[in-house]
């Protein structure tokens, strides 16, 4: 049901997001509610816009309370009006507080609106779905193998009590065919992931913590956006220096290795993963590669180009290459790619100089609606 308030609410959300009425933004304070969700204590941020008025300065005013305590004891929780302090620490020490901000769905929506990202055109392949049978109901007919023992005897007992043939002294229950009950099932259609992101990251010595942080943030946003576009989304992670290996998410973001860089090793592994698991007719495939662009040799770069051109690009929706700037790297790789794939639409390259450039870079990657 749509409520009258929805209009006012979306207007408020838009003000908070800074889309309209920018002049109100400076009055926004970020309060929080401390709530409970299961066992966890969650902090629910509630943005608030206070219209300025002639009011008293909070701190001078003080107030009256009720309860135990000696003079000089702190008053629990402070005043309600004192929400202005930003990012106040949680009030229950020892409890782990989770942030529940916007849902990821909302986040993706904001991202989409903010960056004016087009919705992705599905490759037009049939959505894959598996069916799963769930035994959820009871029927009066069915194969003997599915007979529900308990229910059948319960029915028999009911019938016998109702007809007065049940003798509590000698409690024998005999089912007749009418009493028989069988399990029955419902078939659920479950959508299966039909999109996969393969993240590749250069973890050679030249990639510092800051570079990795950038990759982490960027891949989070890419994840969020693609998740909003596809029902199921799988992610795979590859790290490489001179050799490549597949790792889990955690390792991906926290590994620091040293050594040389052979980008082709990652591309080979990526190709192998695609070929083994993700037939391109059924999957939307998104490889993203992040590196500082310092490849071992021109030969290896050429191998990469070959792999991309003939093997990988035909199979994927798009291939993203993001280059972070590092003090050590020459940053040659992106130039080579741009030169050699000038006309290739599926290959998207982006340079990410610093954290502030992440937004533009996401837009470059996802702005084409592939």
């Amino acid at each position, binding site marked *: 049901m749509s409520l009258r308030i929805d209009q006012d609410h979306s207007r408020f959300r838009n003000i908070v997001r800074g889309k309209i009425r920018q002049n109100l933004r400076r009055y926004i304070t970020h309060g929080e509610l401390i709530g409970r969700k299961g066992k966890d204590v969650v902090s629910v941020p509630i943005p608030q816009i206070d219209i300025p008025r*002639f009011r008293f300065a909070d701190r001078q005013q003080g107030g009256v309370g009720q309860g135990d305590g000696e003079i000089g004891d702190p008053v629990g929780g402070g005043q309600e009006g004192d929400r202005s302090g930003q990012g106040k620490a949680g009030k229950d020490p020892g409890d782990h507080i989770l942030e529940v901000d916007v849902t990821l769905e909302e986040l993706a929506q904001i991202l989409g609106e903010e960056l004016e990202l087009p919705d992705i055109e599905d490759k037009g392949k049939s959505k894959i779905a598996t069916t799963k049978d769930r035994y959820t109901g009871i029927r009066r007919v069915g194969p003997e193998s599915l007979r529900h023992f308990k229910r059948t005897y319960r029915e028999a007992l009911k019938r016998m009590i109702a007809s007065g043939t049940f003798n509590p002294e000698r409690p024998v229950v005999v089912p007749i065919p009418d009493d028989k009950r069988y399990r029955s099932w419902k078939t659920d259609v479950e959508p299966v992931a039909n999109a996969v992101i393969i993240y590749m990251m250069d973890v050679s010595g030249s990639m510092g913590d800051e570079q990795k942080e950038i990759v982490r943030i960027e891949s989070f946003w890419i994840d969020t956006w693609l998740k909003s576009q596809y029902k199921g989304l799988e992610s795979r992670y590859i790290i490489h220096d001179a050799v490549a290996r597949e790792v889990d998410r955690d390792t991906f973001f926290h590994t620091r290795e040293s050594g040389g860089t052979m980008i082709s090793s990652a591309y080979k592994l990526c190709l192998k993963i695609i070929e083994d698991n993700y037939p391109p007719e059924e999957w939307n495939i998104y490889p993203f590669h992040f590196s500082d662009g310092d490849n071992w040799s021109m030969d290896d770069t050429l191998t990469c180009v070959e792999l991309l051109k003939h093997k990988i690009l035909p199979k994927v929706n798009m291939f993203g290459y993001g280059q972070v700037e590092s003090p050590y790297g020459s940053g040659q790789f992106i130039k080579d790619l741009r030169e050699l794939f000038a006309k290739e639409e599926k290959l998207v390259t982006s340079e990410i100089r610093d954290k502030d450039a992440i937004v533009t870079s996401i837009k470059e990657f996802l702005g084409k609606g592939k």
Partner: protein
Amino acid sequence: MSDIALKTQLPSYLREWQHKIEEIARGHGLDFFPVVFEILGYDQMNEIAAYGGFPNRYPHWRFGMEYEQLSKSYEYGLSKIYEMVINSNPAYAYLLEGNSLTEQKLVMAHVIAHVDFFKNNFAFRATDLDASGRIDPVRRPENYDPNRKWIDKMANHGQRVRRIIERYGIQKVEEFIDDCLSLENLIDPHLPFAGTETSTVEDENVAIEVPRLRSKDYMDPFINPEEYLEAQRRKIEEARERQKRFPERPQRDVLLFLLNHAPLERWERDILEIIRTEAYYFLPQMQTKIMNEGWASYWHSKLMTEGILDASEIIDYADRNSSVLATSGGRLNPYKLGVELFRHIEERWDKGQFGREWEECDSLEMKRHWDMRLGLGRKKIFEVRALYNDVTFIDEFLTPEFCHEHKLFSFAWSNRNERYEIESREFKQIKDKLLFQLTNAGNPFIYVEDANFENRGELLLRHEHQGVDLRADWARETLRALVRMWKRPVSIQTVFDGKGTILRFDGREHTSRLFKAS
């Protein structure tokens, strides 16, 4: 309204309970407007609560903000709204769908006492739409049945604002509403009871007489030379001109002053008037929060435990009741404070613990066992509910014994420890703090002092400083809103850190200068 009324009729078993509860309440002497109960789902409840109880208000983002806070805290199980009641005639009240019968009965009993309060407390007379001229706070007509069709009134406001938005665009209108809301608290709570001011216009045509020195006729032109007289006359005229202040007397209803004198467009005037009317509507509720909730809690517990509940519900009821009256984290709960004070009054007047003899008695022992069996308690609390507001209620009935028994304390900000700390448990300090918070509904006293400040058509407001400074950043922002209305620079005279200060905004920059109080 109608679309809600249709879907939300009360089921018959609740209607029966309503009749029963009303009957019991009348038996106890409660006197209330007819009450229309409606039952709402939680999202509708949150919506209407966000609109301040009215299903139909003008569009504004802050209602959306309220809604988000209410629904978030509902979703995370932090709070839910049990009841809501609107001061109107007939009164409207909302019950939350899915509450247990015990809870609904509790809410109905609570609501009926609220409506009794709305009808009988003097402060709410200011919300009578058919009142004209000065309202007498004590006497009211026989068969008092005022027009308080506020649901319609608010819906009309909504329509008017919507029409204006259609014509001038949401952005422009909303910005103006924000400016109005910045000034919303600058109204005069006494105005409805003061009536329209009859200004004593001095007769300007009275000739100016210059005092002459006594003289013989023939000497007169020499002793009182014509040129000198003329010069004197001019001087007096100028002085008179200077004295002609505008406004003549400081005016507390800043909104009214702007409405009458600021160069506003018609639609702006329309909106400002709406905001002002609604501010006056909500004012009595702010002035009587403690009393109103106390009164309703007093009666719901009386009615529930003396007739409405059966034995199986008592535990459930006690559980709910205790959560309503709970104090946590040292915070003052108006429900609790109010109900305990009413009970305190009832007990004192039952036992005759008042008057000169009581005041002058020094023996704690005697006081403890003081019981003259007067039985005046019930009568007294009915009188109190009609003739007091929170300020006078606390001022007259808060006693040292009460503060001690209920462990009240005053708190203040400690600069050294960066936190609020318990400051004192002395009766006087507690009472002073409490009264300060309640006076003028917690707002500073602000007057329009001069509309031709420094003879430049600038507006000067004056903050009557009573020990607590204004919040400086907000004061500056509020000046912006004032400038947008007044279209000329606006200043406010106040005190910061013990120094008289004038803050001024001229539309481009803020200035402040020290000022010596004359």
